């Protein structure tokens, strides 16, 4: 019986498997996950599990179809394309007829050789390790002020900790642009977050880690030190595969990599313009790519590109965003009032690829997408 093998066991994998079945594929499907859990949601980790504010059960996904075989604790070490087989850490080989690469990414770490105790937020175990320590903690330092770092900071502030974020760049600015980053950072500082900028970089101090060291601010210590400094696509196992890897595995707009091989999720990059490869490591991308990848394997159909959409929740700001980051310049305020932190914003462009954001403002996503693409101000939204 023909066999589709999905290497990697997170939401891109679960979505690919679900789409294959929904589209009528009745051959065998196997998911090989490196973690010891079946696919789960990472979304609640930074938003609550790290602080014990949400139970581990909040990460559970609705079960996969019973006829999808999920093998946990299986790490792929090599792809033998000429044999149509994936080699596992124990030396065994798993054959496939169609392959989905969805091995995700791993947290980037800052610890030096032999330095123990670095905390990151990527897996359920990472989140539980932090949750086990927050009860005793009064102070926290978060290294990295991107989406993840700021969400972690927000959760810990909510729990009552004295929290400092430190980054080389101003928080969120590289991602969101100066305007929107400014709005969110103002809300964060108002909530009690301390923000330190260290352009020369941040090193972890102590062994086990007990603080950070910067040129600009010296040594700082805290009860809890969490690194949120990005993630690295898990592509080591593809090194000898001959597949195109540029930071991540290179996919086209149909998520195709090579004949009968597709990829989806945090492991992927797309070539935006020749020579420029970009990741889109968001839940929405993983879901969208998992779906498109499955359809490409089944139907070889061309996918219709969908506008980039993602969101963040931090410091009382619920922000939904459509468009390619960063959002440069001042937006047009379509409705609401930014000073009251409830507004609908539009960054127009001459082509159809503008950007739009809703800040604590209820509007169906399809309307936000239409606004980004230049449609007239939508009706029916409200703070």
């Amino acid at each position, binding site marked *: 019986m023909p066999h589709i093998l999905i290497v990697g066991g997170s939401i891109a994998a679960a979505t690919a498997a679900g789409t294959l079945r929904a589209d009528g594929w009745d051959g065998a499907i196997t998911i090989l996950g490196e973690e010891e859990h079946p696919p789960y949601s990472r979304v609640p980790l930074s938003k609550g599990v790290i602080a014990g504010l949400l139970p581990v059960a909040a990460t559970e996904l609705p079960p996969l179809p019973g006829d999808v075989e999920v093998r946990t604790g299986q790490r792929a070490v090599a792809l033998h394309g000429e044999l149509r087989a994936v080699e596992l850490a124990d030396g065994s080989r798993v054959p496939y007829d169609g392959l989905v690469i969805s091995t995700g990414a791993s947290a980037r770490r800052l610890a030096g050789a032999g330095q123990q105790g670095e905390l990151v937020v990527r897996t359920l175990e990472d989140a539980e390790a932090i949750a086990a320590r927050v009860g005793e903690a009064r102070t926290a330092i978060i290294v990295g002020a991107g989406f993840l770092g700021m969400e972690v900071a927000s959760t810990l502030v909510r729990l009552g900790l004295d929290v400092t974020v430190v980054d080389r760049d101003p928080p969120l600015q590289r991602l969101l642009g100066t305007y929107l980053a400014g709005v969110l950072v103002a809300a964060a500082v108002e909530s009690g977050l301390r923000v330190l900028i260290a352009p020369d970089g941040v090193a972890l101090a102590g062994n086990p880690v007990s603080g950070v060291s910067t040129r600009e601010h010296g040594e700082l210590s805290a009860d809890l030190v969490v690194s949120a400094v990005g993630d690295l696509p898990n592509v080591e196992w593809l090194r000898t595969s001959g597949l195109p890897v540029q930071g991540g595995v290179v996919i086209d707009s149909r998520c195709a990599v090579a004949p009968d091989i597709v990829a989806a999720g945090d492991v992927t990059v797309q070539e935006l313009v020749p020579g420029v490869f970009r990741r889109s490591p968001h839940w929405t991308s993983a879901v*969208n790519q998992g779906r498109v990848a499955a359809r490409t394997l089944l139907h070889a159909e061309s996918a219709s590109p969908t506008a980039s959409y993602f969101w963040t929740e931090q410091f009382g700001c619920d922000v939904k965003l459509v468009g390619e980051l960063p959002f440069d310049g001042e937006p047009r305020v379509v409705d609401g009032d930014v000073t009251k932190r409830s507004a609908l914003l539009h960054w127009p462009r001459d082509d159809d690829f503008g950007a739009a954001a809703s800040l604590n403002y209820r509007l169906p996503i399809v309307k936000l997408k239409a606004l980004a693409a230049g449609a007239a101000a939508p009706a029916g939204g409200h703070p």
Partner: protein
Amino acid sequence: MGVEIVINKAACEGHGLCELTAPQVYGLDEEGQAVLKQPVNESNQAAAEAGARVCPVAAIEIRR
């Protein structure tokens, strides 16, 4: 084997990923709330479940 799909209106934040994944089953109403567009039966059950799985706020429950 029938299933019932229950959308938790209080939890739904209108991200629309259910609709993206299974447009034949889910839609968004004027308020941006996820709604079932048709009853779930054997022919669309796999799609309904796939759409439930991608909800980032776990607002869609599959009851067997």
